């Protein structure tokens, strides 16, 4: 994953996680060095630990072994919200809040970690254009959105914050082809915009999607992560 002029973002050293109150390991000896420009896919059978790994990377769950570094520093205590401002995890099930699409997009700006930023209609309008949505889409109730639209809103909510890393946990698993393509395009465009400083990791079951989107594939099996041999994939044009 090392590239010329790329900067080290997320570094994972020997991370492990045990099943609560039991001895068996759910994640074991995970090592990753995630740099600017990384486009990584994680594949593997159901129950192999992909989601657990993504949650550990997003620091949503505690780990029992190893460490996770953000730009060379450990992520703990009050550094965690600031890390999550820059490295955003997107769940398979989009979680939207009561109110309109705009209310949902504005929500991050009410948080302390984004206090220095302001909601920008211009940025949102340009993103909406990419997903073929009119400006009036902002006034729709979040409750009335389809699954695909809800996932698009969740992704827009993250991308408008211009994070350095996106961690996408099967974001298109339950979506139709049109929504899937839009989400892929949004992520690809976001990454291309500043490719030496941005990176994403995408959990997917879809081999074609992996082929379209990523440069490197890793395989999760029984809680362990291994590189898939010679899996350099071409990126989308």
């Amino acid at each position, binding site marked *: 994953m090392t590239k010329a002029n790329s900067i080290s973002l997320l570094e994972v050293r020997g991370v492990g996680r045990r099943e609560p109150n039991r001895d068996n390991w759910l994640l074991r000896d995970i090592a990753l060095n995630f740099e600017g420009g990384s486009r990584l896919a994680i594949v593997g059978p159901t129950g192999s630990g992909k989601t657990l790994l993504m949650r550990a990377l997003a620091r949503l769950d505690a780990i029992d072994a190893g460490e996770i570094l953000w730009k060379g520093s450990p992520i*703990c205590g009050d550094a965690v919200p600031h890390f999550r401002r820059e490295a955003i995890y997107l769940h398979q099930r989009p979680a939207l809040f009561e109110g309109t699409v705009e209310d949902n997009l504005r929500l991050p700006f009410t948080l302390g970690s984004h206090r220095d930023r302001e909601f920008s209609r211009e940025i949102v309008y340009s993103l909406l254009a990419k997903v073929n949505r009119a400006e009036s889409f902002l006034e729709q109730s979040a409750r009335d959105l389809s699954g695909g639209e809800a996932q698009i809103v969740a992704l827009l909510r993250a991308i408008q914050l211009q994070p350095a890393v996106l961690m996408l946990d099967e974001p298109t698993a339950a979506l139709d082809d049109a929504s899937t393509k839009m989400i892929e395009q949004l992520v690809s465009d976001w990454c291309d915009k500043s490719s030496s400083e941005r990176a994403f990791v995408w959990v997917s079951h879809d081999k074609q999607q992996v082929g379209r989107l990523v440069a490197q594939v890793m395989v999760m099996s029984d809680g362990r992560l291994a590189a898939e041999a010679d899996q350099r994939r071409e990126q989308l044009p």
Partner: protein
Amino acid sequence: MKYLELSYLDVGLAAALIIINGVISIALGLKLGRLLLLASVRTILQLLLIGLVLESVFSLDKWYAVLGVLLVMTIIAGISAVGRTERRFRGAYIDSLIAVSCSSWIVAAYALLAIMRDIQPWYQPQYAIPLTGMILGNSLNGISLGMNRLTEQLATHRDQVEAMLTLGATRWEAARNSVRQAVHTGMIPIINAMMVVGIVSLPGMMTGQLLSGVSPLQAVRYQIVIMFLIATATALGTVGVVLLSYGRLFNADHQFLDTLISKTGNKGKGQ
């Protein structure tokens, strides 16, 4: 002060009324006969037992005896509050005990040492035990409702809580809405009670004082005092337990420890 002393015969005459319930149960095939009998026997035995305990504590008139009774009442209240909740988490009993004891004892101390400062000695069981008992009972209710609502909110809105965290929210920002709703739920019953007190029904303590010959105006003053005491204890207890629970369910790394919450099979009987 004058009141009519009741004999065991009088009590028996009242107990005989339960036959009406029994007849209704038989006539409608409710099969409540055995339960009615058990409930009647428990009512008589439990109240006679507490009567005997209080009789001896009153006659002993020692501070340690009074504090002992209050301590037992507090522990039972703390345990009962958790017992009524629909979901539990490790440490819930400790949080409940801390919240119920701090809220009730602070308010009871204020009542005995500041409002009723002329009582000598301060631990007179005639005042200390019923006052603290009423405060505990209401604080317990608020604690139970507050804890139940908090765990319910967090468990059913887990995705939203985590979505907030993934967007850079602190643990407080992610939990604030649930905390606010839990405290609101815990405080509503006492506020409702204050709105209708004296209109819809006469409170138990006031009724008791009227029966024992206290003038209505004096009984009302006592009731006003107790309403404010229990409102304060309920607020303190609810806020206390909700904040303690929040501290257990979110760690310093701003992670929501949802796996700590487990269902009990209760239906959230906190009322």
